[in-house]
């Protein structure tokens, strides 16, 4: 069952072409990697998928429960409601808010009380707020952040901030999760832990995951398939083993990294 269909998407900024005829297909439940040298356009693709940018040409289609939805031109919050969650390359947490707040705000779109209830703290408010805290704590538990629920996000160590971003994205109840360099800046032990968590949440939350990463140990270990992007174009697509031995990929990118993996 296809969940995401990116067909020949090109994005130009004036004279600069960031992505060119990019096509990606994701099946439900897959864990797919998107790799490529810096500046290849990986985050641009994420921004196109989540509606921050609009494709210059091409279509992006999300399929959920059999219904297809074209994402072109939709606003980011609509795309999130349609089932797409993401993290950011440069962490975009709500720094001056607490860990708990960061997560429960992400649950807002599914909250079941309206303005009147929020103004007067009616019973529906009190019920839902309790639920919000419970659900948030469960998510924080995955990342062992429950004890820090009242800590300001900016005070967390870097690794925990990255975890919190993932927890926040999970709180939006996505079907497709986009992770943008979740292991950036982590040491091997943290990366190994993250690799396990990603695999675990995929199963637990029935997610499809598309992952941008530079850390090849994570990518090779966990991704079932990998797309390779270079200068805005997909130059290869296959299993980790296929990619490892693909000449074009090695030329473009993997050459040095293969020694480090």
């Amino acid at each position, binding site marked *: 069952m296809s969940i995401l269909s990116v067909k020949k998407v090109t994005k130009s900024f004036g004279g600069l072409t960031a992505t060119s005829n990019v096509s990606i297909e994701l099946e439900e439940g897959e864990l797919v990697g998107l790799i490529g040298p810096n500046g290849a356009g990986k985050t641009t693709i994420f921004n196109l998928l989540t509606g921050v940018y609009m494709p210059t040409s091409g279509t992006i289609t999300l399929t959920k429960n059999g219904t297809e939805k074209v994402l072109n031109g939709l606003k980011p919050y609509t795309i999130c409601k349609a089932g797409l969650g993401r993290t950011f390359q440069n962490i975009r947490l709500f720094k001056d808010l607490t860990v708990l707040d960061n997560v429960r*705000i992400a649950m807002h779109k599914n909250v079941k009380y309206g303005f009147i209830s929020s103004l007067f703290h009616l019973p529906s408010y009190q019920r839902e707020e309790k639920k919000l805290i419970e659900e948030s704590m469960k998510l924080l538990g995955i990342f062992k952040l429950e004890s820090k629920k009242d800590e300001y996000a900016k005070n967390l160590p870097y690794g925990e901030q990255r975890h919190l971003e993932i927890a926040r994205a999970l709180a939006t109840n996505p079907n497709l999760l986009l992770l943008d360099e979740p292991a950036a800046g982590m040491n091997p032990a943290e990366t190994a832990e993250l690799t396990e968590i990603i695999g675990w949440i995929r199963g637990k939350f029935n997610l499809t995951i598309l992952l941008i990463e530079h850390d090849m140990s994570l990518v090779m270990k966990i991704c079932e398939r990998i797309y390779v992007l270079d200068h805005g174009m997909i130059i290869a697509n296959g299993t980790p083993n296929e990619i490892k031995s693909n000449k074009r990929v090695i030329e473009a990118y993997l050459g040095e990294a293969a020694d480090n993996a």
Partner: protein
Amino acid sequence: MKKIYEVHGMKKLVSLALTFLIIQLLISTNIIDDYLQATLVTICINIILSVSLNLITGFTGQFSLGHAGFMSIGAYVCALTVIRMPTTLGFILGVFLGAATAALVGCLVGLPTLRLQGDYLAIATLGMSEIIRIIFLNLKITNGAAGLNGIPQFVNWLWLFIFTAGTILLITNFLKSSHGRACISIREDEIASESIGINTTKYKVIAFTFGAFCAGIAGALYASYFYFLKPDLFGFLKSIDVLVIVVLGGLGSISGSIIAAILLALISTYLQSFPEVRMIFYSLLLVIIMIFRPQGLMGSKEISFSVFSKLGNFFSSKKGRV
């Protein structure tokens, strides 16, 4: 069986009732005389204005320099209503009509302009407020520059208290809800907020409209107490007045706004006869706060009732329990 003082909101209810009764007592025995009463009204109007501007600017991050415009709409609509219906019912109707009109204008203005960022939004709201002032200056029904005089006075401590405490409670409740938190997330990081499913434009407009509604209430109260209105009362300087209160108290702190509102109302009244000195003081205050303590008095923290429960524990016999 829960003790009576542990019932949700009981502490709040008791402190509110006490505040109301104490001040009512002081008024009835004329300890708070006419002169002080005017100061009290100014304090309450300032509180409503600053708390509502804080909602827009401090909590949702939308810099509005046009708050006075909304206040003037509330003031004029209420005045015109209560002049034609000089009863308590007319007054209440006037307040709600004034607030609703202000909210409507806020919504209409907000929809196109809230896409703008930072300083652009500030200038747009300033322009909008000036347009409103010029309209009131030129309409026959508002009597132009000469203003409206003899507005029936219906504001007494009861109404003042209800509207002031009501505004504070509703805004505080809102900010503690998911909808309020959505607004706050916009201030923190608009792009991240959108990415987690929040329609940022909708919530900016909601905060703006809600803030305008409250400013309208403040305007209506002003009209029906100080009984004279003219467009120049609600110019850029009035918007700055409110901004100074919010900045002094702390952008993002409700209790900060309340404290600063009280402080500056007192200072304003004291410096009444020296308007230039007052403005020089305000302007220096703005510059000094921004350079040396931009978070103002309270930053984004609040005074909580835990202060009172700690006092309570001090007097109770069970030591060691916090």
